[in-house]
């Protein structure tokens, strides 16, 4: 079933160039940029809010819109970071480091222009990688059995949990709790109702939207309320000259390419996404620079490389999701959820069975990115105006949106109650410095993992060694163990460093 890339692209053009799909693409990228600009609400929250809306759309339209929100947010996140030193979301934090100093030097316009171009370049290169690699990986995925699926999910979860903030134990605990919450509901194999506490509405499990909003949206709002009364300096933006000088432009080309490569690589790995990609790109750019001391003071490379990286990562993040059906992070988990809701079975067969979905997506990603470049440059002043709305007026509306979004999943207020409870839990996690993203990942993967574990055990007649006897599975388990060992080693190292510091301090007294 090798349709060839050109054939696929033509097919995708046919699918994507309908007015309906173009509209959804536009809504997605516009909302995405908007939400990326707004601090406190990110693409994750927005996508979960839009999930119920996409029920009424075709599967292709739904994913295109949600994806548009995702990579659109990568464009917008840096705007607030540059202008107000306020990142729109995690991946934009790096943009504050050199982008805000640039704004303070009066170069805000240049920074904004350059990040838009960098985002576009990163997205396009990431898209090329997605087009080339996803079908190839899907072919490998066809050889996967239940054991391989289980092992790669284990790998993905371990990677996601240990790379998350905080100690690996906390990340793994989050994953485990997510797996546990995923068991709530009817057990598919036996029909037994688990952890339902007699509540009828729980027989289908806890809604994904409620989990996502409760874990990320609500705690973010509560947390932002404590900082609300701090005055934010409104940077004056003169957008008269947005075009950088020729020498500045030359400085940006190689960082863009490097950033795209780094981002494209990290984005496709399970457990890593745009945020990690942008941090790595910044770190590498600093190491490679002729004069590293310029970084943090307005170095233009420090702004372009991470932007290319996070956009490339946003595109290649779809590789494991589309080719294997394994989400690489929480956002991809939501995308998978959306696919399942529309009755599409994710997995290696996806590309072969739903070519219009895959190729339509690819082409609309390209169209979406073009739309974004056109949108961002003139609309920068609009985003600046939006950022001026005081947060204290905005958050009640966000809360209502969250409530309505979750209500609309089943037209039942039960889900709104669930969001409240999960929101309280999510805030508790925030306070206790647990990262909620691995939890959501565990929640989405839990049922799949359990099913594959059961099937693998059934096929191997109860032999757990099957996971290391089969070569592909063994490879995944091996890498997972390596990652685990490396992070434990890191924890040990930090512990010893602290001990040495304490001893030195004691000596000095």
């Amino acid at each position: 079933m090798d349709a060839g890339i050109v054939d696929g692209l033509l097919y995708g053009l046919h699918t994507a160039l309908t007015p309906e799909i173009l509209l959804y693409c536009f809504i997605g990228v516009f909302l995405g940029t908007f939400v990326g600009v707004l601090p406190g609400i990110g693409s994750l929250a927005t996508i979960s809010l839009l999930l119920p809306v996409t029920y009424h759309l075709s599967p292709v339209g739904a994913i295109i819109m949600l994806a548009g929100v995702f990579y659109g947010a990568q464009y917008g996140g840096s705007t607030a970071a540059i202008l107000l030193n306020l990142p729109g979301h995690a991946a934009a934090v790096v943009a504050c480091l050199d982008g805000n100093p640039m704004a303070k030097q009066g170069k805000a316009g240049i920074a904004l222009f350059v990040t838009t171009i960098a985002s576009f370049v990163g997205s396009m290169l990431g898209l090329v990688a997605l087009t080339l690699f996803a079908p190839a990986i899907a072919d490998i995925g066809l050889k996967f059995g239940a054991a391989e699926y289980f092992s790669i999910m284990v790998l993905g979860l371990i990677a996601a949990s240990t790379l998350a903030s905080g100690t690996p134990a906390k990340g793994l605990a989050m994953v485990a709790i997510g797996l546990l919450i995923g068991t709530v509901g009817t057990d598919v194999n036996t029909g037994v109702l688990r952890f339902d506490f007699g509540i009828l509405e729980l027989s289908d499990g806890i809604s994904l939207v409620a989990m996502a909003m409760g874990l990320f949206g609500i705690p973010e709002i509560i947390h932002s309320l404590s900082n609300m009364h701090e005055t934010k300096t409104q940077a004056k933006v003169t957008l008269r000259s947005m075009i950088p000088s020729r020498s500045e432009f030359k400085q940006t080309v190689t960082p863009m390419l490097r950033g795209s490569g780094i981002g494209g690589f990290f984005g496709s790995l399970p457990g890593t996404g745009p945020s990690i990609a942008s941090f790595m790109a910044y770190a590498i750019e600093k190491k490679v620079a002729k004069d590293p001391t310029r970084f943090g003071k307005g170095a233009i490379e420090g702004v372009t490389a991470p932007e290319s990286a996070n956009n490339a990562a946003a595109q290649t993040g779809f590789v494991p999701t589309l080719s294997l059906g394994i989400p690489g992070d929480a956002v991809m988990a939501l995308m998978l959820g959306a696919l399942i809701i529309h009755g599409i079975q994710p997995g290696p067969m996806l590309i072969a069975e739903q070519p219009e979905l895959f190729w339509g997506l690819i082409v609309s990603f390209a169209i979406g990115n073009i739309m974004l470049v056109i949108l961002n440059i003139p609309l920068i002043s609009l985003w600046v105006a939006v950022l001026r709305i005081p947060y204290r007026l905005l958050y009640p509306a966000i809360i209502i949106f969250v409530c309505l979004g979750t209500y609309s999943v089943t037209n039942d207020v039960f889900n709104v109650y669930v969001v409240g409870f999960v929101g309280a839990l999510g805030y508790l996690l925030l306070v206790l410095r647990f990262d909620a993203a691995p939890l959501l990942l565990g929640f989405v993967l839990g049922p799949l993992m359990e099913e594959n574990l059961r099937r693998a055990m059934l096929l191997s007649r109860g032999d757990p060694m099957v996971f290391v006897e089969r070569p592909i599975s063994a490879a995944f388990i091996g890498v997972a163990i390596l990652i685990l060992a490396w992070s434990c080693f890191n924890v040990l190292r930090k512990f010893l460093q602290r001990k040495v510091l304490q001893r030195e301090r004691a000596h000095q007294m």
Partner: protein
Amino acid sequence: MPSRDLTDIVGGLLVIALGVFAVLHAQQYELGSLQRMGPGFFPTAIGYLLIVLGLFIALPALFRAGPSLQINWKGCFWVLLSIFTFAFTLDYVGLPLAAILAVIAATGVGGLRWRTRFILAIAVAVIVYLIFILGLGMNMPVLPVI
């Protein structure tokens, strides 16, 4: 800075508690065998895993300093009140009124005058009505049940 890492101690203990709960509650479901796992197998296994992980989190925290717990109790209260108000009243008073009540609850955090709160509540109710009822055509009660 407190001499023990309070956040991780509390966190670890909660994780252990959850693990214990999972193991105990899952006892009512059949465990099955390795080859044919019953509904209780996965949750029980995760429960034990959580207990172990919780120990890994809480024990080291006893020996190191950590940041103090910072909880925004006020924010938590008003935001959750807003959500539960909305959930409770929606079926009785319809969307616009529920939205108004919820916004007023949400702005209980402070910083806004009563007049602003009312205006904001009505504005949000109108916007939400336009987007969700008229724009997206969602089906939900709009008028109070008399």
